[in-house]
């Protein structure tokens, strides 16, 4: 058990520096030696609408977030309204006392539906429709209110000329950390680590930290726990997007194409800023030299995938990154990559669909589509990652698999992964081996790119090395169009046969993992970013004496049918946990293993699932009170 275990939400307007607040908090605690993990929730909006950062601090690995929170830091008048359900006994709510009188109707950024829920709740409980009313309601739930005048503290720190709103993020973060009992030395270091490059900004923010700590020690002295320093080591803060970008470059990415879309574009954005980097010379006397990766912002996603496919056939490791709407546009070209046996990687960050859906919110509802994307039968690999370490390594593996089996690889992730802040120890390059197979040799004369071979994989050819033909039509071994029925049959068998070869050659742990004892009363099945939450819940259930294991599925195509069947056929109870409406992984299991799953714990409101609701839901399903539980946490 972790001695320290604190959940914090810091909320404010989009564009109000919530991202910096998140960085300050995670960096400060990491510098002090603690473990931290957090997710950013935001609207599809540039400035004004409500945005918040949910973070958990522990002295052991943080794998999930949890409600109710221990600290709610409200940087504006909207936050106390929308998060009034997120508090419980002893939750510390810090708020700006200058906005106490703000009426619910004056918060123009609130959506009318949300406003109506809040209004009904406050009225039925007999509270006035103001920030004060929501604070009183939270107090009734047991929260401890900590009023702060943002205006006077910023004034005290920096004088009257500086706008309080600009420093609300640092102020809110610093007061939160003071309340948590984190020594100000670490908060100062966290601030320096975020603003270190800009001297003036840093000085201003340091003054804010100082004033914040003084204010808390003078007026409150309230501390959850004194947090002393732990063993300190150098670590790195990465978002999921950045982790994938880094994994791709290590894996040999040389050409990445994209069209701007949330939440995928941050990956390519990050790469654009780091497209010229150091690499080893690879010779006897290892030296550093420069290398590059070309990032192309295409005119649309169809163009992005087309460029990636043809770039791959020219010899570069290529990839594209997108989300649901863009992926829908790519479907035809993915089939082209299938019939032409092109090693291309598509990183798919799921968000709430259908159509534009919930463009900045989480989802796992594109699994069925990813598995089936494109018309006709053709092989592809679909693999997913559950956390940052897997993500970085899978980015390399995606290229390896694409190249070894000559097919498109869809690396399916989600918004929760993309927008999470992870703290990592660095890169273990030895775990990131590049595997190459059947690279083209320069060859004179006619080259049979689609030759039938003993091992089932044709020789690879690249433009510029071999004279060869590709066509989206069915083709012969040279690559010219044919409608000959026998050749068609043989080509279909060759292409589809690669899935069996892949299944044999890809290590089982890259396909599926069983956590916990084989012998269990309850088996949870899930995938992707739910991994950490379920591992935490499993630990909790185990402590209560429940026999639970967790079948974590990493590869959806080809499907680890035998492994999954062997585990599930003897399961007494199977619970499917997914962030979609239809239980898409369960459908895939039924399709591949002919096993029915009858119990579902689902979430589709777009917000990150949390440990408490997964725990509660699983308990409900185990108790037999319901066969379908829908999770609803999150503002």
């Amino acid at each position, binding site marked *: 058990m972790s001695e320290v275990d604190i959940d914090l939400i810091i909320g404010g307007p989009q564009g109000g520096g919530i991202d910096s607040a998140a960085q300050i908090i*995670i*960096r400060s605690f*990491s*510098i002090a030696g603690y473990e931290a993990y957090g997710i950013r929730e935001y609207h599809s909006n540039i400035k004004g609408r409500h945005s918040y950062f949910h973070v958990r601090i522990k002295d052991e690995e943080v794998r999930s977030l949890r409600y109710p929170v221990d600290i709610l830091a409200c940087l504006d008048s909207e936050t106390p309204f929308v998060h009034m359900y997120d508090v419980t006994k002893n939750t510390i709510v810090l708020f700006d006392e200058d906005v106490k009188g703000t009426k619910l109707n004056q918060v123009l950024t609130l959506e009318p539906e949300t406003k109506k829920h809040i209004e009904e709740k406050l009225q039925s409980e007999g509270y006035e429709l103001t920030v004060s009313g929501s604070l009183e309601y939270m107090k009734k739930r047991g929260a401890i209110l900590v009023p702060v005048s943002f205006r006077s503290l910023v004034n005290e720190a920096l004088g009257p000329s500086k706008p309080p709103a600009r420093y609300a993020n640092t102020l809110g973060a610093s007061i939160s950390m003071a309340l948590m009992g984190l020594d100000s030395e670490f908060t100062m270091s966290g601030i*320096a*680590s975020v603003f270190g490059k800009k001297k003036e900004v840093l000085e201003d923010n340091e003054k804010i930290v100082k004033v914040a700590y003084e204010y808390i020690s003078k007026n409150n002295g309230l501390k959850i726990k004194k947090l002393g320093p732990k063993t*300190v080591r*150098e*670590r*790195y*803060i*990465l978002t999921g997007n*950045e982790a994938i970008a*880094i994994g791709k*470059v*290590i894996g*040999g990415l*040389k*050409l990445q*194409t994209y069209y701007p879309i949330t939440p995928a574009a941050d990956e390519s954005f990050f790469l654009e800023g*780091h497209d*010229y*980097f150091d*690499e080893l010379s*690879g010779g006897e006397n290892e030296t550093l030299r*420069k*290398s*590059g*990766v*070309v990032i192309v912002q*295409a*005119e649309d996603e169809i*163009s992005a995938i*087309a*460029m990636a*496919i*043809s*770039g*791959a056939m*020219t*010899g*570069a490791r*290529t990839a594209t990154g997108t989300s649901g709407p863009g992926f829908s546009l790519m479907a*035809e070209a993915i089939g082209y990559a299938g019939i032409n046996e092109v090693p291309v990687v598509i990183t798919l960050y799921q968000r709430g669909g259908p159509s534009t859906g919930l463009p900045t919110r989480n989802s796992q509802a594109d699994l069925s589509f990813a598995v089936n994307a494109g018309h006709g039968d053709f092989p592809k690999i679909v693999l997913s990652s559950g956390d940052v370490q897997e993500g970085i390594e899978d980015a390399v593996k995606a290229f390896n698999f694409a190249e070894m089996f000559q097919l498109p690889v869809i690396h399916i992730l989600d918004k929760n992964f993309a927008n999470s802040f992870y703290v990592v120890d*660095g*890169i273990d*390059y030895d775990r990131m*081996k*590049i595997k*190459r197979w059947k690279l083209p040799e320069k060859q004179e004369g006619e080259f049979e790119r689609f030759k039938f071979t003993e091992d089932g994989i044709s020789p690879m050819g*690249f*433009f*510029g*090395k*071999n*004279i060869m*033909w*590709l*066509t*989206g039509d069915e083709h012969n071994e040279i690559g010219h169009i044919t409608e000959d029925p026998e050749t068609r049959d043989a080509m279909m068998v060759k292409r589809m046969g690669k899935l069996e070869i892949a299944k044999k050659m890809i290590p089982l742990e890259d396909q599926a993992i069983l956590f916990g004892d084989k012998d269990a009363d309850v088996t949870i099945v899930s995938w992707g970013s739910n991994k950490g939450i379920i591992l935490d819940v499993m630990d909790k259930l185990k402590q209560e004496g429940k026999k639970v294991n967790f079948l974590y599925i990493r590869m959806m195509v080809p499907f680890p049918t035998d492994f999954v069947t062997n585990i599930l056929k003897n399961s007494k109870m199977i619970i499917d946990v997914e962030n979609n409406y239809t239980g898409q992984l369960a459908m895939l299991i039924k399709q591949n293993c002919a096993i029915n799953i009858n119990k579902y714990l689902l979430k589709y409101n777009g917000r990150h699932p949390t440990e408490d609701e997964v725990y509660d839901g699983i308990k409900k399903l185990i108790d037999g009170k319901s066969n379908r539980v829908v999770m609803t946490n999150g503002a």
Partner: protein
Amino acid sequence: MEHNYRTDLWVDWCPGCGDFGILSAIQQSLAEIDKNPENYVMVSGIGCSAKTPHYVNVSGIHTLHGRGIPFATGIKLANPNLTVILDGGDGDILSIGAGHFVAAGRRNVDMTIIIHNNGVYGLTKGQASPTMPRGLKTKGLQRPNIYDSLNPVAVALSVGYTFVARAFAFDIKNTKDILVKAIKHKGTAVVDLLQPCPTYNDINTKEWYEKRIYYLDKDPTWDPIVRKADEEEVEKKYLQGIQKSLEWEEKIPLGIFYQNEFVPSYEERINNNIPTYFTDPPATSKICDGNGLPLARMDKIFSDRLIRK
């Protein structure tokens, strides 16, 4: 031995198709330029024109309807040492692929786009393409066309193409000459290739064109080339090209409308950001050592992600 630029496949276009002339002109221009045949890649979309790469004995990639331009772009950006030539139909490039056609003008990747312009969708039985004028009723149409046509040369000029020309499929010698210039041009070259469809376009026939075409370079004062990198010169040549592009119906000009090699290619723009781009292009850049250990080092990338006191 000289490379034979023909493949031994049976060419399956209709007898009398303008595509035969374009194919010959392409084969002749490749032979004339005389590069290593491995360094050419022919790209196509979907339609009659899209078969062209199969008939030329250099690498060929027959892609998706409308997507020839991005496929061609990906090849060139992965390996800027290759010579990339795209054959597309007028429907392929100017309708389903029109967005790519506009974007390609803004990029100026060093490649050649040949538009097989016959006014109809041949393979699907003669529907009107974006270059067929309103009111025409070719024999494949149920009713006269109610769309207005677009002007490929004017569109190309307005979106920034740095080489814009027109040729006539049945004048193979002139088409070959124009293609050689287009292929040698630094930047994206567009050739509007008038290509009569003997099966579905019974109005804009070979004879119809032969009565109307004339050659711009027969006029000794015609100079479409931007000679110096100043705004006035560019504007003069650009407006002259636009004006010429408006001629149609009575007299149809052939030849180069505009050429400007002072605009940096997309590859040059990349090389400004990544100075190893030309010397160590994506397609041939080494990514691991003999043991599969990755070469890329992330230390610099990590520096601003480093958490420390």
